[in-house]
């Protein structure tokens, strides 16, 4: 049985400006997001992620193409669509002089069920450890983000659209957020989540769309993206780097870009850690630091042949 699509985007384009100053922010985007999935919309800054989201929310109008959410047209039926979605913008602005509770009550009132929604909002706030009695101007950026999440999720929407949702959240709250997303999926709800943080997308998403320069380059399962993943590894030895170690490492098929700096050796590693660990154990290893690749690096690796490696 075919999956029921929640978001259907057909040839959606958006350009800003006119004449020579015209900039194409999104180019003929075709994309489908199915019910019950967490879809990661991945791309570097300026790739067109926020433009896509603002088009879906009818905040900006497409230059070409169309999109439907729940089978409804994003322009003609925007009010009905908004009733059924929750949205957290990337750069969240709220009423500075109002308390979290007042904002929750106001948003719930506009949604039409202040009492019922507010009760759920209290539960979410407690879970995210958010004090809603404080004015927004007195909240840290992380707590503002929590309030934005509560406002987006408190009516248990069928579709959540989240633009860079965990920016500013501490690791513990990020874990809670990930758990909440899993619960969302278990309830058959859909999440469209934009991010430039690969680890976040890996942690919670089912499928990933990779956007670059306003064009959708790939839509893959998270597992497939993970397969092209490599790491940057820094190994610091207590004493000098063992003689011949650099040559040994360069001989390993999964290792490249080896460079040294004093007692430290830096390399790019693809796949399992075991071959690397066997080689470096010839010296006394003081510290190993592993960095995940940047999205741009993953992207380049994915499209420059490392996928086959």
């Amino acid at each position, binding site marked *: 049985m075919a999956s029921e699509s929640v978001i259907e985007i057909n040839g959606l384009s958006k350009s800003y400006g006119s004449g020579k100053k015209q900039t194409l922010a999104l180019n003929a985007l075709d994309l489908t997001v199915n019910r019950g999935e967490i879809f990661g919309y991945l791309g570097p800054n300026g790739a067109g992620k926020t433009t896509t989201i603002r088009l879906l929310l009818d905040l900006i109008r497409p230059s070409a193409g169309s999109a439907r959410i729940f089978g409804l047209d994003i322009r003609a039926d925007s009010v009905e669509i908004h009733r059924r979605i929750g949205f957290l913008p990337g750069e969240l*602005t709220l009423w500075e002089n109002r308390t979290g509770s007042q904002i929750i009550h106001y948003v719930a009132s506009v949604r039409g069920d202040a009492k019922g929604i507010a009760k759920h909002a209290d539960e979410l706030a407690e879970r995210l450890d958010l004090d809603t009695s404080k004015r927004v101007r007195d909240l840290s950026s992380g707590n503002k983000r929590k309030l934005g999440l509560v406002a987006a999720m408190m009516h248990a929407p069928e579709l959540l659209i989240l633009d860079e949702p965990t920016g500013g959240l501490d690791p513990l709250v990020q874990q809670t957020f990930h758990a909440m997303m899993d619960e969302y999926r278990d309830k058959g709800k859909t999440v469209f989540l934009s991010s430039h943080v690969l680890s976040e997308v890996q942690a919670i998403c089912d499928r990933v769309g990779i956007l670059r320069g306003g064009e959708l380059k790939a839509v893959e399962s998270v597992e497939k993206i993970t397969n092209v993943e490599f790491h940057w590894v820094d190994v610091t030895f207590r004493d000098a780097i063992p003689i011949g170690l650099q040559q040994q490492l360069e001989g390993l098929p999964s290792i490249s870009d080896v460079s040294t700096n004093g007692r430290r050796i830096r390399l790019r590693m693809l796949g399992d850690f075991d071959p690397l660990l066997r080689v470096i154990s010839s010296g006394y290893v003081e510290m190993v630091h592993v960095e995940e690749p940047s999205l741009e690096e993953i992207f380049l690796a994915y499209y420059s042949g490392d996928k086959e490696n």
Partner: protein
Amino acid sequence: MTGIVVGNTLRTSWKQILYWGLGLGVLGLYIDFIASSPDIIAGYADLFKAMPPALLQAFGASDVALFTTTEGWIVSIFVSEAGIFLSVFAVLAGLNITANDEQSGLMDVILSLPISRAAYLLERWIGYALVGLGIVLLCALITVAGIIGMNVDAPHDVILKSILNLYPAALLVMTVTCLLATALRRRAMAIGFAAAFVVVSYLFNVIGASASGAIADFMESVSYFSYIHGEAFVLGIYNPTDSFILIAAILVGFALSLRMFVSRDIGI
């Protein structure tokens, strides 16, 4: 339309009623205080008699005889000065309808809620129209209370009507600013053009009323200040047509704002 946005606008802006209303009320009390002394009024009347028409118009009166009566003096001075202050409020309120929230990014949150752009704009406009009404009412009541408290010999109803007559003009400035903000998208540009609208209107009124000829008549006719007729209530010659013209201009301005706001990108 549910009225929720109107309610929220009033909850977040009620202090403006207090501050602006009290501020203009103090101006009214000051004018009441001066008006309580017939000698001062007589002194001012002599001073105004020596003034050229343009300068007299700048003080809010086309007829020097107005300044010889207490109510004429109160109305002319208060309406001309409060008219300018209310215009400043109206520009700020017009910016608050959409421009400030759009600039800050708050509009993205608001318009992701189940409310249409048209309904939102209308409710915001009504909200700030009520704030403006609150300000005009509060300052009018304080001014009249001053007249009573200081035993100033001036008819209360004339003073009250003259001050309330400021309201349509304030609404027009607010609507024009809202239109500029929705059309130009840039807050700074909207402020500049709205300020120019107020200043040019004021100058056109002063020049148009003090000169004669087709150009002067035209200048006066396009200035919203020329449709504020505080003195007409004193002289008993108030013609509601001028207020209807302002209301018609407000409706046209709001319809254009609505068209702009509904059809364009938000926050770019």
